């Protein structure tokens, strides 16, 4: 019985660990507008979810190590409004994401634009981001 409870708690802990933080905060409280980033890499996963989507991307660091990024996007309805579809996220897709790095988490970013390998560009920014001209 104790083992069962332990396993349940372990599973719950694991779920919490991979679940992106979802508490609402001001954009500037979570992301640093003085740290714009341009991430070039492979999209491994996309969470098409409310209230925000999440792109998981692997980039290669200068030392050759792979860095795993979690990139917040606008919610699905906004993404659709800007022309993006679930089907656009194919296996092994390479892309460039421009956005801002997390204030407290260096592997977290808020995406503003997503450019596919075929050149298509999408605005993926969430509400409250800086007026940086990305939404054009």
């Amino acid at each position, binding site marked *: 019985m104790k083992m069962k409870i332990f396993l349940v708690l372990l599973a719950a802990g694991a779920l919490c660990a991979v679940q992106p933080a979802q508490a609402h905060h001001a954009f500037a409280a979570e992301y640093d507008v003085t740290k714009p980033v341009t991430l070039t890499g492979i999209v491994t996963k996309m969470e098409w979810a409310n209230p925000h989507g999440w792109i998981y991307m692997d980039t290669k660091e200068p030392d050759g190590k792979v860095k795993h990024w979690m990139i917040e996007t606008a919610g699905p309805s906004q993404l659709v409004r800007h022309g993006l579809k679930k089907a656009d996220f194919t296996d092994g897709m390479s892309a460039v994401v421009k956005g801002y790095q997390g204030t407290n988490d260096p592997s977290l970013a808020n995406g503003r634009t997503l450019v596919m390998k075929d050149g298509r560009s999408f605005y993926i920014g969430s*509400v409250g981001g800086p007026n940086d*001209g990305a939404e054009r």
Partner: protein
Amino acid sequence: MDHLRHHVAAAVVLVATSLLAGCTAPAPAPPPAAAEPPYHPVASIREVMNSVIDPSVDVVWNSVKTVIDHGRPIEHAPATDQEWAEVRRHALIVSEGANLLMMPGRPVAPPGAGSLAPGIELAPEEVRALIDQSPGGWNQFARALQDSLQPALAAIDKKDPQALFESGDEIDAICESCHQVFWYPNAGAAAPVSAR
């Protein structure tokens, strides 16, 4: 002449009696003292948000989503009656939680608490001032939050994952609109930085 005098005297007596009657009539009962409301807010608005609204709305939002893992879409949605009932429970918690936000007398944050992001998100006393300035506006947002859960509840009752998923956008829009007015009204003024 005597006859006329008699009439005048009678009239004077009548008027005097009427006036006297008016003066001695019992004073109207004072309005009943405002009764103390039977409820008693225990948690602050911040605690209601963190303990009631946010965890439950996350369950509603997360109940339907697609995870595209290496190009392979994996659909998530409530499947059993029990899972639908669980989402409904959380949708109701958010709906009723909105009433908690409207209850007068609830502090914004626990005593001594400050801003969670100084300079970006307002301190509790600043939030209080905004609410006191526009209690109607505050209540309108809380009511809009409650109303925004109605399509979610209807979708749950129909066991319609797509409608439940689509309802999430409006809920988020209401949350964000209210936060921009009462929590971080100045956060949109971040210095423009080129992301290009």
